[in-house]
C-alpha cells in the first residue's frame, strides 16, 4: 500500500462538469460510498454503480469513498477514481471508457494547423464543447496548464477524454510535459488515437529521436501502428540555434512551433506586442521549417480580450511566413482564421497571375506577363499556393 488517502479532481463553487473523490481503503466493512451531487436525482444511482464497478475492477472490496460531484460525465468520474486508486495500490490494469468509433481517425501531414485550441488537461468543463468551435486542432495540455500536484491525475483525464469526447473531427493533439516526464505521458496517449504530440522546450534532434523510440516501443507493445505526428516547440535560445536540426530530425515532424513566453524569459527580456526581441528567433524557426518543408507555427497571443491586437499580431505573423498560431480561448479562433486567410485582394491578384500563366502556356508564349509586369515562376507558384489555401479554407467561392 502506498498512501492512506487517495484524492483526485477539483472542488469549489466554480467547478463544473468535474468531481472530487477521496478514497480510503479500509480493512473491512465493504464499499462505503458517500455521494454529494447536483445531479443526484438524475444520476445518483448510476454514479454509485460506476464507482463500485471501478473499485471491484481494481480488486478493492473494502473502502470509504467520498464523492463531491458537480455534474461530471462518466469518463471524468472514472478518470478521477482511477487516479485516486493508483495513489493507494499498484496496478497495471486500466479502467478504460469505451472508445467512441467517431474518434478513430487519422490526420495528414499537410492539413491546416492554422488554429489549435489549448485545453487545460485537468479541466473537463473546457474540453466538452471544444470541438464545436471548429479550430483546426485541439491540444489537451499536460504541461503548463496543469498544476504540478495535478500532473498525475491529468494523465488519466486526458486519456479518457481522447476516448470519450467527440471533438468533431478536428486534429487531436496533446502537449506532453517537458522531457523526461513527457516520456511517461506517452503511455497514456498512444493507444488512444492521439494524432499529434507537441514536444515542449525542445532543444535537440536527440529528444525527437528518443520520443520516436518510445512511440515505436509502445506501438509494438499495443500492436497499434497509426501514425503519430510531432510538433516540437522551440522555447529557448538553444532551441532556436538548433531549429534546423530539430526540424529535419524525423519524418513525422510535420510542424514546428515557437513559444515566446519561455523564449523571452530564457534570453532575459520582456515579451512585447511589437516583438522586436523575438524577431530573430521567429525568423530562424520559420526558415528552418521552410528549408525542410514543414509548417511554421507562431506562439499563442495571451490577451484574450483584445481582438484587435490579436489581429495585428496575426497579420504580422502571416507576413513573416508563419502558417498558424495557438489559441488559448475559442474567441481567438475566428480572428486567427480570418487573418491568416488570404484577403480578397490577394485571391483576386493570384487568380489573375494564374490565368496569365495558363494563357501563356496555351499560346506558347515564353514569358508570362500581367499588364506591363513580367511574372516569374516563383510568383506563379506563390499565387497557386494562395489559391489552394483559399480553396481549402472555403473562402474562395464565397462571393462568386
Amino acid at each position, binding site marked *: 500500500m502506498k498512501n492512506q488517502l487517495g484524492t483526485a479532481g477539483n472542488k469549489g463553487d466554480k467547478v*463544473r462538469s468535474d468531481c472530487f473523490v477521496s478514497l480510503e481503503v479500509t480493512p473491512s466493512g465493504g464499499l462505503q460510498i458517500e455521494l454529494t451531487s447536483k445531479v443526484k436525482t438524475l*444520476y445518483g444511482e448510476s454514479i454509485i454503480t460506476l464507482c463500485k464497478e471501478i473499485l471491484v475492477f481494481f480488486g478493492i472490496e473494502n473502502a470509504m469513498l467520498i464523492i463531491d460531484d458537480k455534474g461530471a*460525465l462518466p469518463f471524468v468520474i472514472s478518470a478521477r477514481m482511477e487516479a485516486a486508486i493508483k495513489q493507494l495500490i499498484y496496478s497495471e490494469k486500466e479502467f478504460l471508457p469505451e472508445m467512441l468509433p467517431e474518434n478513430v481517425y487519422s490526420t495528414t501531414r499537410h492539413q491546416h494547423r492554422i488554429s489549435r485550441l489549448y485545453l487545460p488537461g485537468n479541466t473537463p468543463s473546457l474540453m466538452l464543447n471544444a470541438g464545436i468551435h471548429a479550430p483546426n486542432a485541439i491540444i489537451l495540455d499536460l504541461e503548463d496548464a496543469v498544476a504540478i500536484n495535478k500532473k498525475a491525475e491529468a494523465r488519466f483525464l486526458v486519456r479518457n477524454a481522447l476516448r470519450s469526447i467527440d471533438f468533431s473531427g478536428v486534429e487531436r493533439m496533446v502537449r506532453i510535459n517537458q522531457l523526461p516526464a513527457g516520456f511517461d505521458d506517452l503511455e497514456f496517449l498512444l493507444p488512444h488515437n492521439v494524432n499529434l504530440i507537441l514536444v515542449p522546450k525542445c532543444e535537440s534532434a536527440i529528444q525527437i529521436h528518443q520520443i520516436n523510440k518510445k512511440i515505436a516501443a509502445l506501438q509494438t507493445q499495443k500492436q497499434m501502428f497509426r501514425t503519430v505526428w510531432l510538433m516540437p516547440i522551440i522555447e529557448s535560445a538553444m532551441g532556436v540555434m538548433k531549429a534546423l536540426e530539430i526540424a529535419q530530425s524525423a519524418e513525422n515532424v510535420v510542424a514546428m512551433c515557437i513559444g515566446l513566453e519561455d523564449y523571452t524569459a530564457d534570453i532575459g527580456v520582456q515579451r512585447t506586442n511589437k516583438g522586436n526581441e523575438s524577431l530573430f528567433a521567429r525568423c530562424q524557426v520559420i526558415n528552418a521549417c521552410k528549408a525542410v518543408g514543414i509548417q511554421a507555427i507562431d506562439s499563442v497571443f495571451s490577451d484574450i480580450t483584445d481582438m484587435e491586437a490579436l489581429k495585428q499580431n496575426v497579420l504580422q505573423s502571416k507576413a513573416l511566413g508563419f502558417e498558424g498560431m495557438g489559441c488559448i480561448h*475559442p*474567441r481567438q479562433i475566428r480572428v486567427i482564421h480570418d487573418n491568416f486567410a488570404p484577403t480578397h485582394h490577394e485571391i483576386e491578384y493570384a487568380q489573375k497571375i494564374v490565368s496569365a500563366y495558363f494563357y501563356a502556356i496555351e499560346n506558347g508564349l515564353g514569358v508570362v506577363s500581367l499588364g506591363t509586369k513580367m511574372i516569374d515562376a516563383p510568383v506563379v507558384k506563390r499565387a497557386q499556393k494562395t489559391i489552394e489555401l483559399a480553396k481549402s479554407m472555403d473562402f474562395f467561392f464565397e462571393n462568386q
Partner: protein
Amino acid sequence: MKNNNNFVFNAIGRKIPTNVNGKTVIPFMGIGKYLPEGNKHTSPISTCANFPSDGNKLLPTLKDSLIKAGLKSGMTISTHHHFRNGDIIANQIFDMASELGVKDLIWFPSASFECHAYLIKYLENGTIHHIEGSMNGSLGRFASDGLMKGCGVLRSHGGRYQSVQDGEVHIDIAVIAAPTADSFGNANGIDGPAACGSLGFALADSEFADKVIIVTDNLVVFPCIPWQIQGNNVDYVVQVEKVGLPEKIVSGTTEITKSPDRLFLAELTAKFCEAAEIIKNGFSFQSGAGGISLAVGNYFKEIMVKNGIKARFARGGSNKYLVSMLEAGLVDYILDGQTFDLEGVRSMRENPNHVWTSPFTSYNYHSKGNFASQVDVVILGATEIDVNFNANVVTHSDGYLLHGIGGWQNCLFSKTVILTVPLFRDRIPVIKDEVTTICGPGELIDVVITERGIAINPLRVDLIEKTKDSGLPIVSMTELKEMAEKICGIPSKPKFGNKPIAIVKWVDGTVIDTVWGVDES
C-alpha cells in the same frame, strides 16, 4: 381554502387538480379554445369627493397606508418586479402585516426574485398563505418541499393581466413601488434614484385593485410627467427614504455573455434566422434578458449592417445593445416591457421611439387582437424540451420549482418561436423524452437550437424548406435527445409525492400542468 383531491387529465394529457385553494379551475382545452363570455371584472366605484381636493394623498408611512387600505387576514396583496432583485418594499409589507397579526394573505407579485427569500419566514408563520406568481430559487425550493400552506399559482405576464381582468384574481391592495411620483399618485419609472424604465406590470393592478398605494423616494410637485400610472386610480401615496436598491435593479443580465459556448449558440441562432430569411427589411424581433439572448441581438445587428436591413420594431426587455440599434437607425421602435439597464432607462426617457408598454399592450388574452402574434421572431430559453417540442421553464429536471414563467408563454404566439438552449447543462440533458412540467405546447414552438444541432418542428415545412441547403446542422428532436443521452447517460426521474405544490396556468387562465411536491425520501 382546502384542496380536495380530484384530478383530471387536460387536453395535453397532464394530470391536474380540479380545485385549487378552494376554487374550481378549468383544465387546458387547447390553444385558443377557451373563450369565456360575460363582462370584465371591475373595481369599486370611487368618487373624487372622497379624496382631498388639493390632490394630496400623502400618508406618513407605508404601515399607515396599509392600515388605511383596510389590510386584514385573507386579502390578496400585489407587488411588482420592476426593481427585480433590488425590491425592498414587498418584504416590508409583510413585516408590517406580521406585526399587525394579519394571517393567510395571498401574495400576488408580478415576479419574485432571490431577495424575496426573506418572505419564507412569513410563509412559515402563516402571514402568507400562498403565492400566486413566480417562485424563484429559494421560494420555489420551499414550495417544492411541500412547505407552503396553499398551492402556488404560476402565470405568465399576460396571464396575470388576464386573471385580473376577468376576475379570477381580485386584488385587495396593490402596492406600487415607483421611482418618481407626485402626491396625487401619478407615477413613472424613468426618473429618480431607483429609475427602472416602465411600470407596466403594475398597470392592471392600478386599474382593478380595491386600494392602490404608491410608494416612492422621489416625490415631485404635481404633475409627475409622464404618468405611467395615473393618480386617478391611486388611493394613497407614501414617501420613503429608499424605494429600491438601484445597483440591483439593473444588475446581472446587462452584459453580453463572454462564455464562448453561449456566444456560439447565439451566433448559430442568428445564422439560422438569416438562412430562414427572417431577417429582412421591416421585420420585428424579441429576445429576452439572458446572456444568450443579448448576444443574439448583437449578431442580428451584424447581419443587419452587413445586408443593409432595418427592423420595424424590437420588443424589449431593452438594454444598451438594443438602444444602440435604435440610435443607429437599425430599428424604428423599441416597444419595451421592461428595461434592463440605465441606458435603456435613458433612452426611454429621451427617445419618443422607445415606447413603454404593459402586458395589456403586449400579451393580453382578453384583448381585441394580440401584439405578440405580430412579432416575426422571438428567441427564448427553456429548462427542458421534449421530443414533441413541449417545453418547460419553471421546474428543473430534479423536479424542483425554480423559475417563473415571465412573458415566455405569451411570446410563443410570435410567428417564429426559437428556443436556444445548450444540449445539456453540466450533466443534465435539456432535450428529453418527457419534460417535468409543460409550460408551452410543442405546436407553438418552431425551432430548437443547440450547439450540436438544430431541430425544426415538422409543422414548419416552410422553415425546413428554406434552410435545407443552408449547411446548418439540421437534425430531428429525437436525434438531439439521443446525442444528449449518449453524452450524459439516460437520466432517472425524480420521485414526486401526490401533492400539487403549484399549478401552471396557460395564457387563457386554464390549467396546463401541475408542479408536484418532490419526495426526497
